[in-house]
């Protein structure tokens, strides 16, 4: 019996499921936290991420359902997320209103609106989408465990193309923030907006683009949830992931690759729960309790780390502060 258990836990399908589950659960967080990170570096704390993800999930679902193609879905998700973030641009960047108040308002409004519109449109039918095409990287997808060719959820080298695009984008954003003028402008908008203004660059424009980018990324993250992860839309689909992404972005201390790493770490902890369920391994706990334990472990870990290394926490100096030219 024990030998059978050990064999099933470490069998190739079980390990593949673990890796695949981590990516599937981590990808939406990766998109959303990447957007949030850029927005935070530009000095705008976007608490409305949860709502933007939900609207993105809805728009992505509807577009993929009617358009019959996942790329319509991701495009529509990005547009819808960016559309919602226009509220943030207008209220917080343009008018300089409190970002947290507006963020909470956006989240609440979007939760209400998405549920209402979906209900009005699909109350009877409750449609679902088919499985998403996966791209098997030639050669690499033949490797056991990380290859995942022929597995239902794939693995590292067999994922929907959008996952690879997201990873590429993370690298691109990291490079841009570090090495380009545009990245310097974004960082200046968050750390010293007055200096950026004095240098002749518009703080308003820089922050607006950053917020729009965050909205679009949150929308893609939400669309990923409805199109790839679930294949359907529910008003509880996002379920707090937006807030998790905010936390991940803050903990990444402004570095995109850390946000990706955090998302994947979180994805692993979510997928360990599924994996343990498949392997029937609960360390003496009921299976659903084990899931809860695994789900909260990353946050417990992070809090312990914060207590130990608390002094090293970093946030942009002008985060959540509206910029007003000439004010001291």
């Amino acid at each position, binding site marked *: 019996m024990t030998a059978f258990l050990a064999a099933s836990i470490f069998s190739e399908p079980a390990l593949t499921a673990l890796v695949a589950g981590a990516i599937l659960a981590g990808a939406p967080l990766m998109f959303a936290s990447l957007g949030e990170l850029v927005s935070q570096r530009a000095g705008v704390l976007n608490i409305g991420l949860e709502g933007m993800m939900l609207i993105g999930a809805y728009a992505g679902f509807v577009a993929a359902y009617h358009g019959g193609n996942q790329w319509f879905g991701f495009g529509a998700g990005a547009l819808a997320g960016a559309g919602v973030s226009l509220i943030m641009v207008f209220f917080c960047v343009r008018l300089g209103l*409190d970002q947290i108040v507006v963020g909470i308002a956006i989240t609440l409004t979007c939760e209400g609106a998405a549920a209402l519109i979906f209900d009005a449109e699909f109350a009877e039918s409750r449609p679902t989408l088919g499985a998403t095409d996966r791209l098997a990287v030639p050669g690499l997808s033949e490797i056991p465990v990380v290859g995942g060719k022929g597995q239902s959820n794939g693995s590292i080298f067999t994922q929907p193309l959008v996952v690879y695009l997201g990873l590429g984008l993370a690298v691109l954003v990291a490079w841009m923030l570090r090495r380009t003028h545009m990245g310097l402008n974004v960082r200046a908008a968050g750390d010293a907006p007055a200096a950026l203004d004095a240098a002749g660059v518009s703080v308003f424009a820089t922050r607006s683009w950053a917020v729009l980018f965050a909205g679009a990324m949150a929308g893609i993250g939400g669309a990923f949830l409805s199109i790839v992860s679930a294949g359907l839309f529910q008003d509880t689909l996002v379920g707090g992931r937006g807030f998790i992404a905010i936390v991940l972005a803050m903990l990444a201390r402004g570095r995109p690759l850390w946000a990706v790493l955090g998302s994947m770490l979180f994805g692993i902890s979510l997928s360990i729960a599924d994996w343990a369920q498949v392997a029937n391994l609960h360390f003496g706990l009921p299976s659903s309790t084990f899931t809860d334990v695994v789900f909260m472990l990353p946050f417990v870990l992070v809090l312990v780390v914060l207590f130990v290394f608390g002094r090293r926490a970093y946030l942009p100096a002008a985060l959540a502060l509206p910029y007003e030219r000439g004010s001291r």
Partner: protein
Amino acid sequence: MTETTAAAELREPPHPGEAARRPLRLGRVGDFLLRSILPLVLAVVTGAIVLAAIGVDPIDYYKDIYSGGIELSAWQDSVMRMAPLLLMAVGLIVVFRAGIWNLGMDGQFLLAGAVVAGLGPWIEPHVPNALNLVLMFLVAGAVGAAWTIPPALLKARYGLNEIITTLMMTFIGIDLAQILVKGPFQDPTTATPQTRSFDFTALLPSIPGTRIHGGILVALASAVVVWFLMSRTSFGLRLQVLGASARSARHMGLDVPRLIVVSFLVSGMFVGFAAAAEILGIWGYQRADWNPAFGLWVVPLVFLARLNALVVIPYVFLLSVVSIGGDYAAQNAGLTPRFTLLLVGLTLLFMALTEWVAGRAELGGSYLPRTSFRRRRRSEGSS
């Protein structure tokens, strides 16, 4: 220069343009209408437009909210919904006065509820009912307060942003509540993941002549206590100084870290009370998947009431009516009850907008937090 012109010059205001820049005064009534009523009106109107857009008659819908939340004995349900909301609002007022964001209320609420629903039925046969109820409120308050300690310490000691930490604590709290309900507190007689139930007679007694449980009295008393604390004691003044400017508070010689921790603890305690009122007044047990997510609902109300614990009471009643009546109206119209969220969110959005308009018209005295992030000024004072 003759003497008369010199005198006229003296009487001249020091800045000639001042008359033109004199702020517009609306008076108390106008100010109240603009800031506290207009956002609600705008939200209701926008909500009506949204309803009409999806083909629901908004007038009928709002009528249903009224009849489902007020008429017959429905107002009693609304008053019962008030109890947890008011207690949470009161808890929020304490931290907001200090300029601190406690966004972890849902975790504090569910964890306190789980402990009450888990321990209560177990203690209940051994002690008199009244003692048990008091004990349960104290336990809930202690649990809610305890859950704010990590964010409070991290903020007090390292200045770590409390939004991240309270959000993380809320995730942990929600999971821990589920673990407790499914694990040690699980009712052995059922397969449903829920705690054992209180005996019906051991719950909060109703106010005579109504179905309303006594939790609302606790909530109203708490509102009065917090109002007194905030407006009539030095503690309230100290919190207000801290909220206005942490630097000034430090210059005044206030023990800022201690104030942060205390305001967090008091806030968490009231959130714990809210959970106790809901469990002991309405449910009598807690299910693992139960999460009313009241936390974000009360945020706009607290601002509309300008952080005044007495003024917030009618707003909380209004929200309760919209929430209870909204369920009924949604059912009638075949819609999701989450329309209520839309109204609350829109209220908050319009409130921010009217505040901006008021700021533009130089009405002064905004009640919105200036910012929860302290501006880090260099010693040169250049930025």
